[in-house]
C-alpha cells in the first residue's frame, strides 16, 4: 500500500485543533489548567516544537531502547555486579532510585496535564509522548532495583521512599509538586521541561551514566542512558512556550517561572547529585567534579539558552555560582552525620586520598569542611562513634525543605534568611529560597517543614527515635557509613607509618 511521506502529513496532524460547539473555550481549556494567560488560541497554535516524531516512529524507537536496556540487565544479572561493586556506588544507585523512580510517575501526570490542557496543539502532541516516556521511566527504575531486594531492604525504597515522610522525600515532593503537579500546562512546560529537565536531569543522568560506565556498572549505565534520550526530546517543550509568552508581553512572568524552577532544582540536586559525584563515586571512577558538571551543564548551558530566548540570567546567578563551592559539601556532611535518617548508606568520601582530590577541586576545602571532618575522624579513631551520630534535628529551610548549611571552619559563614509572614516565622537557607516564597506566599505558606511538624507535636515521641519512626525507617533500612569507617582508619595507618 502506498504510504504518504511523513513530511506531507505531519504538520497537518500535529497542529490539528478541536472545533468545539457544545462547550466554550473556557470550559474546554479552564485557565487554571491551561494557563493561557489571556493569549489568544491562534497564538498558541504557532507553537513550534523543535523535535518532531510520529507515533509509529516513537513506538519503534522506544521498543529498541527497552529491548537494549532490559537485555543488558538480563545478560549481566548472573555476573552479580552488585555483589562486588564498591559500597559507595551501591549507595549511589539506592539513593537515585528512591529519589527518582516514583517521581517519574508523577511526571507522567504533569505531561498528561499538557497533553490535555495545553492550548498549543504541538505541545499536546509532544506531551502525549512525554506521558508515555515518564511512565516507562517509572517502570524501568522500579523494575531494575527490585531484583536487588534480596540483597538489602534499602533497595525497596525505590518504591517506598516517596510514600514516606523521610526528610529527603518531603524535600523531593515539595519541589516536584510545586513545579509539575500544582501548575497549569504552560507553567509545567517551562518549569518542568525547560527549568528542570534541560539542565538538571541532563546532569544527573549523563553524569551518572559516565560514572556508571567508569565503575563498570553497564546495567545502570544503559538504563539511565535509555531514560536520558527521552528526556532530551521532551525537555524541548518549554522553549516554544517561552517564545510565545515573551512575544505576547509576558516576559517578566516567563523569567520568574524559569528562575523559581532553576533555583529549586539546584537546591534539590545539591543534596542528591552533589554528594554522589564528589563523595560516593569511588575516586578512581569520578569523571568530573560536581562543580565542573554544574558549570558545564547548568551555568554555561542555561546562560546560552536564556540569551537565545531573550531572557536574562536569573538574578541569583552569582549566588548560585558561589554556592557551587559550598552547598553540596554541607548537604553531604548533613546526610552523612544524620545517616540513620536516610535509606542509603552514605559514603563519607573523606579519606586521605579523597581529601587531596577535594582540596584540588575545591581549594580551601581542608580549612573549611575539612575542619569538621577532622573532628569526626578523630572521634571515630578514638572509639567515640557516638559523637558522630545526631541527637537533634538540623534546622530545615521552609522552601527547599533541606538543612540550612554554609561554610564551616576558619571561614565560618552560615546564614539564615528569616521572614515573618502573617505572624509565622519562616527560615530560609538562602536569599533565593526566601525570594521564591515571596513570589507566591499563598502557594507555600501553609506547608510545614519537618521542624514545624516536630514542634507541632506530629512526631511522637518527640525525640530522634520518634523522628526515625515518623520517617518510616525500620531496622535494615537506616543508613550506616558505607565503608564501615575504613576511610577514617586510613588516617591512623598513615600516622603509624609516619
Amino acid at each position, binding site marked *: 500500500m502506498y504510504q504518504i511521506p511523513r513530511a506531507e502529513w505531519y504538520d497537518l496532524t500535529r497542529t490539528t485543533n478541536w472545533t468545539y460547539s457544545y462547550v466554550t473555550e473556557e470550559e474546554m481549556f479552564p485557565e487554571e489548567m491551561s494557563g493561557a494567560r489571556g493569549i489568544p488560541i491562534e497564538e498558541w497554535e504557532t507553537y513550534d516544537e523543535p523535535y518532531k516524531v510520529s507515533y509509529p516512529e516513537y513506538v519503534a524507537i522506544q521498543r529498541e531502547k527497552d529491548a537494549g536496556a532490559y537485555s543488558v540487565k538480563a545478560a549481566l544479572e548472573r555476573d552479580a555486579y552488585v555483589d562486588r561493586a564498591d559500597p559507595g556506588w551501591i549507595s549511589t544507585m539506592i539513593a537515585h532510585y528512591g529519589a527518582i523512580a516514583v517521581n517519574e510517575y508523577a511526571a507522567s501526570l504533569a505531561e498528561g496535564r499538557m497533553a490535555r490542557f495545553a492550548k498549543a496543539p504541538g505541545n499536546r502532541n509532544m506531551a502525549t509522548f512525554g506521558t508515555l516516556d515518564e511512565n516507562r521511566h517509572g517502570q524501568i527504575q522500579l523494575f531494575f532495583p527490585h531484583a536487588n531486594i534480596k540483597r538489602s531492604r534499602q533497595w525497596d525504597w525505590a518504591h517506598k521512599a516517596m510514600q514516606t515522610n523521610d526528610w529527603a522525600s518531603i524535600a523531593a515532593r515539595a519541589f516536584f509538586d510545586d513545579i509539575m503537579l500544582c501548575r497549569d500546562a504552560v507553567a509545567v512546560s517551562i518549569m518542568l521541561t525547560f527549568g528542570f529537565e534541560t539542565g538538571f536531569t541532563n546532569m544527573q543522568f549523563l553524569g551518572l551514566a559516565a560514572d556508571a560506565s567508569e565503575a563498570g556498572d553497564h546495567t545502570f549505565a544503559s538504563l539511565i542512558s535509555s531514560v536520558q534520550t527521552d528526556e532530551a526530546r521532551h525537555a524541548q517543550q518549554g522553549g516554544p512556550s517561552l517564545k510565545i509568552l515573551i512575544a505576547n508581553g509576558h516576559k517578566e512572568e516567563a523569567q520568574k517561572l524559569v528562575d523559581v524552577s532553576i533555583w529549586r532544582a539546584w537546591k534539590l540536586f545539591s543534596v542528591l547529585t552533589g554528594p554522589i559525584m564528589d563523595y560516593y563515586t569511588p575516586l578512581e571512577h569520578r569523571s568530573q567534579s560536581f562543580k565542573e558538571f554544574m558549570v558545564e551543564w547548568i551555568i554555561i548551558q542555561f546562560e546560552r539558552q536564556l540569551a537565545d530566548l531573550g531572557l536574562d540570567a536569573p538574578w541569583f546567578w552569582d549566588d548560585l555560582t558561589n554556592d557551587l563551592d559550598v552547598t553540596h559539601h*554541607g548537604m553531604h556532611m548533613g546526610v552523612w552525620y544524620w545517616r540513620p535518617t536516610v535509606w542509603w548508606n552514605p559514603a563519607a568520601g573523606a579519606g586521605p586520598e579523597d581529601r587531596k582530590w577535594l582540596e584540588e577541586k575545591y581549594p580551601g576545602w581542608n580549612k573549611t569542611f575539612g575542619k*569538621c571532618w577532622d*573532628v569526626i575522624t578523630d572521634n571515630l579513631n578514638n572509639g567515640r562513634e557516638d*559523637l558522630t551520630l545526631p541527637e537533634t534535628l538540623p534546622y530545615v529551610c521552609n522552601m527547599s525543605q533541606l538543612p*540550612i548549611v554554609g561554610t*564551616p*571552619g576558619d571561614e565560618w559563614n*552560615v546564614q539564615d534568611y528569616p521572614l515573618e509572614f502573617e505572624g509565622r516565622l519562616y527560615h530560609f537557607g538562602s536569599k533565593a529560597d526566601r525570594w521564591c516564597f515571596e513570589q507566591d506566599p499563598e502557594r507555600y505558606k501553609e506547608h510545614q517543614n519537618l521542624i514545624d511538624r516536630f514542634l507541632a507535636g506530629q512526631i511522637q515521641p518527640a525525640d530522634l527515635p520518634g523522628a526515625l519512626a515518623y520517617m518510616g525507617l525500620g531496622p535494615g533500612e537506616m543508613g550506616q557509613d558505607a565503608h564501615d569507617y575504613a576511610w577514617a582508619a586510613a588516617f591512623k595507618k598513615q600516622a603509624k607509618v609516619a
Partner: protein
Amino acid sequence: MAAFPINSNFQGDFVMQLVPVDTEDTMDQVAEKCAYHSVGRRVAPQPDKVMRVRLHNASEYFPRDMKVSDASWRPTETLDIIFADQ
C-alpha cells in the same frame, strides 16, 4: 519554666540545628546546650574561650546571666553562639 525551641548557629559548624532550651536558662546555659550538639562533634573545643550568645548577625552579645524569658525571642529564633575572649 517552659521548653523553648531555638535555631542554633554555632561558630565553626556547617549547619543550623534545632535546640530545645528552657525559659529559665541563662545565656551561658543556652550556649552549653547548643555546644552539646556541635562542640566535640564537628567543632573543635576552645577551652580558653567563653561561649557567648547573640541574635543572628547582631553585633552585641546578650549578658551571660540574662534569662531566656527576658530576651524577647520568638520561638525558633536564630542565635549565633560565638567563641569570645570574655
